């Protein structure tokens, strides 16, 4: 009986660890950051929009080796 109780506890412990990890990952993957930054399509749209509003930040006068 004791033997089954120990095994049961061990199984319950492993399940708890596995599920908590799964929930953490799910919560992480559900964020807007993750949704957008793992989608090339969404990033292309966003970066094109940014490019329209931001001027070139490099001076054309730079010459020679840095």
């Amino acid at each position, binding site marked *: 009986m004791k033997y089954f109780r120990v095994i049961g506890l061990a199984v319950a412990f492993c399940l708890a660890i596995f599920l908590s*990890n799964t929930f*953490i*990952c799910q*919560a*992480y*993957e559900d*964020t*807007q*950051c*993750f949704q*957008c*930054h*793992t989608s*090339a399509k969404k*990033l*292309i749209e*966003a*970066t*094109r929009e*940014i*490019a329209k509003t931001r*001027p070139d*930040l*490099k*001076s*054309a*006068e*730079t*010459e*020679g*080796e*840095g």
Partner: protein
Amino acid sequence: MGPLAPHEKIFVDSDIVDDENHGEIACHECHGGNPDDPNWKTAHKGVVKDPTYPDATTACGDCHDEINENYQKSLHVSLRPYKLIIDERASSNTVIRNKLGCAMNTHCSGCHSSCGQCHISRPNSVEGGFLDGHLFQKKPPMQEVCTACHGSRIQKEYLGEHEGLLPSIHMKKYMKCDKCHTGEEMHGNGKDYAHRYDVENGPKCVDCHKEIYKREAKNVITHRIHKGKASCHVCHSQPYNNCSTCHVGKDKQGLAFFKTKSSWFDFKIGLNPLKSEKRPEKFVTLRHIPVDKRTFDFYVKDALSNFDTLPTWKLATPHNIRLKTTQNASCNACHGNESLFLLEKDVEDNEKGANKNVIVPANLIPRKQKWQPK
């Protein structure tokens, strides 16, 4: 290193959730912003692009506390040698120094690194972009990180990209930067070094080439004769790139620029300006660096009024090492060969004062040898 498209720079590989060490850290824990806001414009309010610069304590430092302890003193973060060298050449006038400080903030202070800019993305100074979808890189990739910044001299010398010059023998042995420049050297050891050549755990040729002074070693006589007299590079470097007269300023749109007058290949042996217990050699290789009395004239005149306190021909360790070179082909390929040495005639008139301690006087050029070791 090819350029990245804007979206590639910020594309996150979804495999990051499987990273056993970092996969459970949510984006906003390091970068801030609002992870629940579906509008990307407002969601990014307060986002920190690189949460590891200038202080990494709340990001990487939370777990990597031993590395973080020395972080501020790592030369890649502090840029202390740059500041000290400009400081030494600068005028003592406070008004001039303040203006010089502004110029340095615009042109020099962006050239640093951070935890993130080595292990996650390309450095900001080369326009950033994730190395591999924000997956953490234990060893920074050589071409996207190290030589992305150290390009025009180190990369081209090391890879043999200069016409007529061979790659370093170490490159031919497939050695990457980290083989010699360890993580410990990059991360710093808590000491506030004034020069990169002072760093205690920096690379030394003899760390690997331990046998060269042993009796049974090949060329032992040559190595023993020259020990403490000439640096390894004097015999084993090929010609390397030299630059001159960098000027900095801002264009009509207010964008910062720099201009260097010229660059050329040369090989010059001079007197060691940084003689120390670690570098006792009398003769070392010298490289002309792109500094000029009027570098900061756009911002303030006479900023570098103490220009002559430091040489413009600086101790160099070119990364194009070969076992056999033109100057080590025989004793007299170097001995008595004036063209290899930095003589007074090789130095521009307005830089003679600055270089007086590194110019080799004619009487110090090693004489031609009659005897040759077997």
